[in-house]
């Protein structure tokens, strides 16, 4: 947007309209009504209201950002206009719906929603509420904008954490550790109310998070303290020891619910590390990755249940070999395909495996639609890993092994061959790399990791169903490694925690989970495509490219916006 040429007023008008439309969008999708009874601060403000006002806040902020040279009065004017216009659009819609009942089309345009928007005030006076509320929100945004920078960041953080804690009330109270008396009493009586935070709790959270943010920012500006190498090493060992202690105690400290989330996240981490090799290191876009998970899981299922009767550990090597072979079988036909053709064929492979598992044709062996049940769980000596908490440790060991292998492979000769292929196949071949072997090894190693995840997944659920092996799972794994940072091993961990753990945690919003998921993906790719914990080289590459998004010549040719 050319900010030099258009006046701030025009932009305010623009932003106001966009904000109004976005508010309508949010309303009609149903977010406001659904979140209308989730209180952030009990009795005062709900998540629904926050979601409704979010576009107003965002667009006011962008308008203020580009109106840096304006006077205070202009800023107040801009903010007020944006708020008022948004509110008026909302009111106009409400009034429209009094004339024409739009519920046959927009199922959420209901009287209950309008009541919420007008805060219970009946029409015609109620129509004034949305403009006032939105204007209030934009003026508050202005207020925050005007606070000096360091304080402002802390205040914003404070608000965000209040929203987070208010929304996550149930998830926090479910933690086993917090059910012990001193915590339980403080949390349930003081900090939280029956829904959301209490007023005292909100102030408490705000104060602590804002204060912490302020303090940490200050520390960044102070010069670094130089410590001796021995002290540094000692500090690092202590840090690692504490971290290890925390990680090992998580399932029992947090309880059953969190153990399940951790286990599922762990399996996705394993799969992510495997796909990271195929897509991240070798650059082969595999959209059918779930097939290998399925093969691992089904082999384990078939061998340990009715047909087999083997134990988990006896069946494990067979499952791993099956997955590994599957990787090679997939790799063979696609050896000469590149790019998007490869993607489609691998997608097809994934679907074929799922269809075969579902089919009546192979029902005798694979169970068809009924799946396979009573899958064995691992037993080591006297210890049976039959609870989610115990499986966590097995999965943790699996992750450590897989991550270690991936890490070593990355810097090995094979790893470098993969990256050479990723950059340019022809040059790599000219350098003497055996394309066939390298590609097959990439596919099969990735498949092996997925197969391992599959066996543990089957043990976790003690059953396998073909309905779980869908294309969406492959997409999820792909998204994890891209959002985490392609080719980056710590990135996989971060990606999985954010994309698998977080939605499970926020299962209250399950109806809109994928809506937020889609939105988050788009936003992330637009503003931080290198991922959350990127490979340093990648970040450089991507932002280098960003600098040249518009080749200069086009700008002079294109006729205005």
């Amino acid at each position: 947007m050319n900010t030099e040429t258009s006046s701030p007023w025009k932009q305010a008008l623009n932003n106001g309209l966009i904000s109004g439309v976005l508010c309508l969008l949010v309303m009609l999708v149903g977010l406001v009504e659904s979140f209308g009874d989730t209180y952030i601060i009990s009795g005062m403000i709900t998540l629904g209201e926050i979601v409704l006002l979010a576009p107003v806040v965002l667009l006011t902020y962008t308008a203020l950002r580009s109106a840096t040279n304006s006077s205070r009065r202009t800023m107040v004017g801009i903010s007020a206009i944006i708020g008022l216009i948004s509110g008026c659009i909302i009111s106009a819609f409400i009034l429209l719906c009094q004339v024409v009942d739009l519920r046959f089309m927009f199922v959420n345009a209901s009287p209950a929603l309008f009541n919420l928007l007008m805060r219970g005030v009946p029409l015609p006076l109620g129509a004034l509420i949305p403009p006032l509320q939105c204007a209030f929100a934009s003026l508050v945004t202005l207020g925050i904008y005007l606070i000096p920078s360091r304080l402002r960041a802390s205040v914003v953080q404070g608000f965000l954490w209040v929203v987070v804690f208010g929304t996550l009330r149930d998830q926090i109270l479910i933690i086993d550790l917090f059910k012990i008396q001193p915590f339980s009493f403080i949390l349930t009586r003081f900090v939280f109310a029956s829904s959301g935070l209490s007023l005292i709790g909100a102030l408490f959270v705000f104060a602590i998070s804002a204060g912490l943010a302020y303090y940490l920012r200050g520390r960044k500006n102070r010069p670094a303290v130089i410590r001796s190498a021995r002290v540094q090493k000692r500090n690092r060992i202590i840090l690692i020891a504490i971290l290890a202690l925390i990680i090992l105690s998580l399932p029992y400290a947090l309880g059953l619910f969190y153990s399940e989330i951790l286990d599922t996240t762990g399996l996705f981490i394993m799969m992510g590390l495997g796909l990271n090799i195929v897509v991240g290191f070798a650059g082969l876009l595999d959209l059918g990755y779930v097939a290998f998970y399925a093969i691992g899981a089904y082999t384990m299922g078939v061998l340990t249940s009715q047909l087999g009767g083997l134990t988990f550990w006896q069946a494990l090597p067979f499952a791993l070999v099956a997955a590994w072979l599957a990787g090679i079988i997939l790799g063979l036909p696609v050896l000469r395909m590149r790019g998007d053709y490869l993607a489609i064929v691998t997608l097809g492979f994934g679907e074929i495996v799922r269809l075969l598992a579902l089919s009546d044709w192979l029902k005798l062996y694979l169970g068809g639609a009924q799946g396979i049940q009573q899958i064995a769980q691992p037993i080591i000596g006297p210890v049976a890993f039959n609870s989610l908490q115990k499986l966590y440790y097995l999965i943790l060991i699996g992750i450590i092994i897989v991550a270690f292998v991936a890490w070593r492979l990355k810097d090995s000769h094979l790893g470098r061959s993969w990256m050479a292929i990723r950059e340019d196949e022809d040059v790599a071949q000219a350098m003497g790399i055996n394309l066939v072997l390298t590609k097959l090894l990439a596919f099969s190693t990735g498949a092996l990791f997925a197969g391992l995840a599959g066996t543990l997944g089957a043990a976790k659920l003690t059953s396998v169903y073909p309905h779980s092996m869908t294309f969406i799972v492959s997409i999820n794994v792909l998204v994890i490694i891209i959002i985490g940072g392609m080719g980056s091993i710590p990135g996989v961990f971060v990606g999985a925690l954010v994309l698998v753990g977080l939605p499970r945690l926020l299962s209250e919003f399950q109806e809109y989970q994928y809506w937020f998921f889609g939105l988050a993906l788009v936003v992330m790719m637009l503003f931080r495509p290198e991922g959350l914990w990127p490979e340093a080289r990648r970040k450089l590459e991507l932002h280098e490219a960003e600098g040249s998004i518009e080749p200069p010549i086009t700008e002079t040719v294109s006729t205005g916006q």
Partner: protein
Amino acid sequence: MSKRLLIIVSIIMISSMVLAACGAKPYECTDKIGCVTVGPTDPVHIAYAMVINGPDATLGIDSRNGAEIAIADKGGKVLDHAIKFDGEDDGCSAEGGQAAGTKLAADPTIVAILGTSCSSALRVAMPLWSTAGFTVISASNTAVDLTEAGNENNYPGYLRTAHNDKVQGAAAAQFAYNFLGFKKAATIHDGSIYADGLQKVFADEFTKLGGTITARESVDPLQVSMSGVLTTIASGTPEIIYHPIFIAAGTQLILQTWKTPGLENTVEMGADGMFSPDVMKGAGDAVEGVYVSSPDFTKFGADYTAKFLPAYQAAYGSVPVSIFHAHAYDAMNMVLACVEKVTVKDSDGTLHIPRQGLRDCMYATKDFKGLTGNLTCTPTGDCADPKIAVFEYHAGEYPPTKVWP
């Protein structure tokens, strides 16, 4: 932290704990599993685990709505306490069942759970819920193993108001063979556990009665082009096609069967997954003569059309899309009735709900008058009225008319 502050905080914490202990309750819980104590101003917490997200969402949302109407009918209260009804998405899958299962199992305030929507979810969740002492009642699980005595998937504390596949599939077979007099049938399922289970029971029963199954096929739940599968079936010239699937694919089958050469006069039949106004709307004129099995709602009484449906319409803006709402309504009423029966109420309003006592009361339910018929529970948890009826669709009319028994 300064020492003085530390001392003050400790004193506050200790005294509050002492005070909490001093307000001890006179009631001593003798229940085998334990009791749920509901404070004088606290709500009675009943949870749900249904599929409310994704393409199958109408199934779970309908059930949840049915249960909510049951709560509203009671004024939102039981024993003068508000009813808190919330829950999780079971995703109609094993993973979803485990997620919902662990989340709910960790909440000791829950008295009973309505769910799950799908049998695959239940098999994983039930061990957790059974150990936690909950009473679980499902409005739409139909898999046979869940209430089969001695089966690994049959856990104490589980009941259901939905019809066991054994009942519904067999009824359909008897209807087709005895009432309609057909000897050749074909089946189509959609890869779901529900449909696959039903067609298997149908096929076994039909063959036992003396008929032959000419083809057993399957479609994808979101499939629209049915010509291939119908042509294959046509080559066996069946007299009836039994497709116990759901609305989307079922409607397409109805629309396309009569246009397929060889199947112009073939009769079609579905199961309660296809008992829905959306089938009547979606299939237009082609729906004439399609049979569907379902709980006999003609026995619901006048209340159903006079009170229940208008209340549903007013609250949710449309009529229920699937039949399972009625099962959920009955399930919730059964739970509330038993809660009223077994709970011990203190003078100050505190409730003590014995968990095993609640389960025993539920299993002992006899001749409970519900929307779906007379409910009597077997020791393993099947509560549905054993009589299942068959209805016939007529174009433009809903609900379909009863033809059997």
